[in-house]
C-alpha cells in the first residue's frame, strides 16, 4: 500500500527527521491562506505517483496570491492517470545540495538494504543508471540492525558540506522508521542540505507491506488504496483479488500462477480474458462469492473454470460454483477442467448437478470457451 507525501512525512517527523512546515489544502482559497501563514512556499500536487515535478505539479510561490494561482492551475490536473484533488503547501528552504536516501526490502539478500546517493533530485534514477557508483548500497543484517558507524561508512569519501554526521544520523533514523512501520520501501528524494546547515527531507515515499496491513490498521488508514473498479472493490471487501481486463471470457481458477496461465492460454487461442480472479490459498472456500462477483460483469460471454487443486480442494471449489450457478442461472455457457486434490468428487458433482462434462485437457476447455465467446 502506497502513501502519498502528506501521509508519509508524519512518519519521518515521528522518527526525528526534519521536514519543512506544511499544510494540506483542497482549494485555491485554502492554499492562499496557508501560504500566508507559512511564507514563501512550494505548491505540491498530492497524487500516488512519481514525476510530479516534470508534469508541472510542483511550483514555487513567493506570495499568497501566487500560491493561490498555482493551486488553481494544479488542482484538477491529470498526473499519471490521477486527478489532483489535494495539495501540500510547504515552506521553502535554502537548498545547498540534493541527496537521495532510502531503505527497502532486497529480494537478493532477503534483508533490508540502505541506498544513498549524493545526486538526489528528479533524475536520480537516470544518474544511477549512467554511473552505478552514484548509488551506494549497504545490506543490513536485520537482527543486528544499523548503527551510526555503519551508516557513516556508507558516506565515506563523499562531499557532503561537512555534514557527514548529520546525514548518517538521518540514515539511522530512516532505518528505524522503516523497521517500526513494516515498510517495503521508505525513500527520501531529495534529502537536502540547506545553506544554513540543516538536513531536511523535502519529499517522502512510503510503501507499507500489504501482508502487514492486518497488524497496522491505524497506519494503513492513512494510505492510498489502489485504484479499483466497483467490482474490484467489492471483491477486495470479500477478501478476493479481482482485476478487470476488458475481455469476454470469464476466468475462475485457483492460484495466481494457474490463473495467469489461463489468461495466457485464452489469449494464445485468440480470445480475451475478462478478468484475473483467483481463489487459491485460504480463499479456495470462497468460490461461490467469487463467481457471483464475476458474473456481474456484463461483458462476459462465456466462463472458463480451471481448477488444478493442490491446497485448494477442487471438490470444495466446485461445490461453490455449483451453488452460485444454480442460484443465478446465468445465460452463458460454462466450460470446466478440473484436476488435483478432490478431482473425482468435483467432476462427479459438476456432472450430476449441472449436467456438464469437464474437459480432460485444459487447452480443449480454453478453445471451447474462446469459441463460445465469439
Amino acid at each position, binding site marked *: 500500500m502506497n502513501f502519498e507525501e502528506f501521509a508519509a512525512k508524519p512518519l519521518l517527523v515521528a522518527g526525528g527527521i526534519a521536514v519543512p512546515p506544511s499544510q494540506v489544502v483542497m482549494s485555491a482559497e485554502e492554499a492562499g491562506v496557508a501560504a500566508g501563514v507559512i511564507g514563501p512556499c512550494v505548491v505540491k500536487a498530492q497524487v500516488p505517483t512519481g514525476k510530479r515535478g516534470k508534469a508541472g505539479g510542483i511550483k514555487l510561490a513567493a506570495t499568497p496570491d501566487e500560491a493561490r494561482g498555482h493551486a488553481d492551475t494544479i488542482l484538477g490536473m491529470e498526473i499519471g492517470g490521477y486527478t489532483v484533488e489535494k495539495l501540500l503547501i510547504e515552506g521553502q528552504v535554502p537548498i545547498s545540495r540534493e541527496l537521495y536516501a532510502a531503505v527497502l526490502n532486497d529480494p537478493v539478500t532477503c534483508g533490508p538494504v540502505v541506498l544513498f546517493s549524493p545526486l538526489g533530485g528528479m533524475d536520480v534514477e537516470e544518474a544511477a543508471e549512467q554511473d552505478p557508483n552514484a548509488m551506494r548500497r549497504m545490506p543490513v543484517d536485520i537482527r543486528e540492525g544499523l548503527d551510526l558507524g555503519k551508516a557513516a561508512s556508507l558516506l565515506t569519501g563523499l562531499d557532503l558540506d561537512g555534514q557527514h554526521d548529520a546525514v548518517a544520523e538521518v540514515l539511522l533514523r530512516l532505518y528505524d522508521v522503516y523497521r517500526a512501520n513494516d515498510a517495503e520501501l521508505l525513500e527520501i528524494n531529495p534529502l537536502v542540505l540547506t545553506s544554513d546547515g540543516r538536513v531536511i527531507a523535502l519529499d517522502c515515499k512510503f510503501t507499507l507491506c500489504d501482508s*502487514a496491513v492486518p497488524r497496522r490498521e491505524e497506519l494503513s488508514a492513512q494510505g492510498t488504496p489502489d485504484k479499483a473498479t466497483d467490482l474490484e472493490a467489492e471483491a477486495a471487501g470479500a477478501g478476493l483479488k479481482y482485476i478487470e481486463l476488458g475481455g469476454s471470457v470469464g476466468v475462475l481458477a485457483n492460484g495466481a500462477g494457474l490463473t495467469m496461465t489461463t489468461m495466457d492460454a485464452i489469449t494464445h487461442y485468440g480470445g480475451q480474458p475478462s478478468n484475473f480472479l483467483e481463489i487459491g490459498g485460504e480463499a479456495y472456500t470462497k468460490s461461490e462469492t467469487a463467481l457471483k462477483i464475476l458474473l456481474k460483469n456484463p461483458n462476459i460471454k462465456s466462463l472458463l473454470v480451471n481448477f488444478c487443486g493442490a491446497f485448494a480442494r477442487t471438490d470444495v471449489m466446485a461445490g461453490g460454483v455449483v451453488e452460485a450457478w444454480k442460484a443465478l442461472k446465468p445465460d452463458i455457457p460454462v466450460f470446466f477442467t478440473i484436476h488435483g486434490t478432490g478431482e473425482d468428487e468435483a467432476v462427479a458433482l459438476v456432472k450430476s448437478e449441472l449436467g456438464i462434462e469437464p474437459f480432460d485437457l485444459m487447452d480443449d476447455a480454453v478453445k471451447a470457451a474462446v469459441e463460445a465467446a465469439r
Partner: protein
Amino acid sequence: MIPRKEHRILIQGITGKQGTFWTEKMIGYGATVTGGVNPRKAGTQHLGVPVHATAKEAQGTFDIACMFIPPMMAKTAGIDACEGGAKLLVCLTEHIPSHDVMEMHAAARANGTRIVGPNTAGIVVPGETFVGILPAFNDRVFRKGKIGVISRSGSLGTLISLNLVQNGMGQSVVYGVGGDPMIGTTTRDALEMLDADDGTEAIAICGEIGGSAEEDAAEYARGMSKPVVAFIAGRASPPGKKMGHAGAIVSGGSGDYPSKRKALEAAGVRVADVPSQIPEMLRG
C-alpha cells in the same frame, strides 16, 4: 536439498485442520513424519506421532520442518525451526509480513537452515516422499519419472506435472520454490540441485512475471548439459498490478514477460507459449 524418504519430517501446526489433513496424506504416501508441534498440546500424540511444545524441544528427531502456521505467527515458528536444527524448512504460509520473512531468513543463515518458500506448495519426490500441500497421492498428476519440475506457483506446478503425465512422462522431483518476492530457495538454486540429481534427465521451469528468478536461472542454464524448457505465466497480465502472488508484479519494465523469455532463450532454454507444449519440447 532434495527430500528423501529417510528424511524425518516435523510438522509445525500438526493438530490444526490443514495440518492434520496434509500430514495424513504425507504419512499415507510414505513420508517419514516423526513428530509435530503445538505448544498447547505438547506431550500428547496426534496421528501416531508425538506432539512437542517447540521444534527446539524436538531437536535431533527431525531433518525437515514443515509449517502449517498462520502468517502472523509464522516468524516465531520459523525461527524456532531454524534454532531447532531443521536442515530444510518448508514454509507454506502466504502473506507473512515481509519484515518477519527477513528475520526468518536471517535465522536460517545463522543456523545453516535452507528455507523453501515462503508461499511454497512444497516438494514431491514421486513414489518416495512429499512434504507440503501438493496432491502427490493423485497418480493422474504425479508419477515417478525423469523430469524435474520447478515452480513458483503450486497450481501451475500441478498443471505442468499433469501435462507430463497426460503425455506418458513422469517427474523425478517437483520443487515448489514459492510465489513470494523474498524466498530462501530460488529457481536457480533448485535448478542447480536438479542438475546434480542423478534421477533427473531434463527440467521444466514454471516461472512467472515479476522479479528476476528466471533471468538468474537462465544464467545457470547456459552451462548445463541437461535440457531445460520453460513456461512463464503472465504474458497477458497488465503491468503495475500484483497478480495474486506478492512477487508477481511488473514494475517500471523490470520483471516483464519479454525480458524473461529473451534471457531464457538466449541461454538455450526453449520457452512454451502454453503449458501443453512442454511435453513435446522435452521429447524433441
